[in-house]
């Protein structure tokens, strides 16, 4: 709370830098206590997931699997789209609780839109990721671990955002339960000058490897390609079908 109040509403006139501008939970809504949380936990859809983001000089590629699971032992959905456009040239992946991630995406999309109409230009990917980190740290979401990937005036960027609000930029990054398998595929193969097609094939192969061995990942792949102009998202039932020659 700042020292400045809105004379009409009495609310803080500056605003919490870590809170979403819209859709903040009302403070009078009772928080879930530990016991209720335990009971509900078995019913919470998790993405398990392997999501991969790779930045190249020509744009970024994001590939995600399509499986949602309950407790990692039951496949509750076989066609989840875990990568969504949130910005004219950026996408975000859903990792963690499906409800948390979906709500997070809606909020970040609204913030990015508001920023763009107010400033006249879209947010930089760094600003977008910083905001996402602030929300993850101080906001009402829990158990999310997304990748934010996109392009701006300074080039191609991939960021991971962890549940405690850690924001880290990298050339390529993987989050979700299949991350070790996917990283194994990418290590040694990545080259910042690789073509967008080569990056796409590498990302798809990483998701395919994780889908083979990680019970939380599988059921095909969704590929998002971001250039400095736009975002394309394609869905494939089989990972092989997503590879380009």
């Amino acid at each position, binding site marked *: 709370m700042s020292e*400045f109040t809105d*004379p*009409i509403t009495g609310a803080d006139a500056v605003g919490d830098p870590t809170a979403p501008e819209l859709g903040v939970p009302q403070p009078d809504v009772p928080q879930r206590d530990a016991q209720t949380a335990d009971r509900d936990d078995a019913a919470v859809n998790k993405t398990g997931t392997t999501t991969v983001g790779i930045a190249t000089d020509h744009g970024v590629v994001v590939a995600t699997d399509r499986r949602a699971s309950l407790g990692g032992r039951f496949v509750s959905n076989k066609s989840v789209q875990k990568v969504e456009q949130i910005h004219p040239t950026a996408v975000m992946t859903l990792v963690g609780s499906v409800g948390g991630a979906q709500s997070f995406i809606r909020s970040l999309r609204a913030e990015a839109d508001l920023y763009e109409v107010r400033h006249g230009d879209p947010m930089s990917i760094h600003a977008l990721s910083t905001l996402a980190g602030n929300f993850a740290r101080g906001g009402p979401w829990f158990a999310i671990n997304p990748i934010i990937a996109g392009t701006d005036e300074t080039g191609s960027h991939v960021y991971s955002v962890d549940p405690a609000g850690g924001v880290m930029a990298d050339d390529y990054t993987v989050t979700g339960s299949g991350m070790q398998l996917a990283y194994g595929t990418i290590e040694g193969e990545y080259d910042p000058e690789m073509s967008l097609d080569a990056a796409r094939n590498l990302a798809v192969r990483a998701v395919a490897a994780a889908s083979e061995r990680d019970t939380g990942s599988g059921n095909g792949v969704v590929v998002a390609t971001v250039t400095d102009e736009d975002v394309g998202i394609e869905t494939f039932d089989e990972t092989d079908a997503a590879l380009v020659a």
Partner: protein
Amino acid sequence: MQDNQQAYDRGITIFSPDGRLYQVEYAREAVKRGTASVGVRTDDGVVLVADRQVRSPLLEADSIEKLHRIDDHIAVASAGHVADARQLVEFARTQAQRHRLRYDEPIDVETLAKEVTDYIQRYTQSGGARPFGVALVIAGIDPDGTPRLFETDPSGTPYEWTATAVGGDHAALMGYLEEHYREDLDLDGGVALALAALGETDDDDALDADSVEVTTVDVESTTVRSLEADEIASHLAELNLEDDHE
């Protein structure tokens, strides 16, 4: 009838029958009573110059602050109630830091100007409040390197200018700036124009280095810099302003 007139004269939230908000207009009068501040935008950066009225030789001239740094790359000048200006300055500083906390980037000048004017506007639409009796000139460099110059007025309307003045002698200052502003001014040329405008219209004593404040925000360093007294004196000497009245 008499009662009604008094009601809309006094009430900030009440329009007069011809659609005016008298309290806002009175606040503009408070701005006119203040000593002038001038802003000039050039391709090399933005200049703010404030006329400082030192009413007693016992007063420490530096304690009259009309130019304020908001962030590394933004400064404001004020005219009108200094105490009101300080509140807006603190609000602007807080907003600039909030933007850094939220997005990890410096705020752009237009966004800051609009945050401030939106805040001012709230004080024209809430019962029991008094409008801010101050106008600000906001100068800064956008993160992409573009110099920007904005004005806020007590109604909460933002304006963008190439050169402008707020406070006393407003009409004369604007007339001078309109006549002498050139798009190819460099930063020193901007300082000279702003000082010349004040020198031309100042009806009492001559300008001297103690009676004006000069701050620049230049494109190259994107930082706010207050000119030292000797720098101001040499600008004034070049303009032959210092000796005119002596």
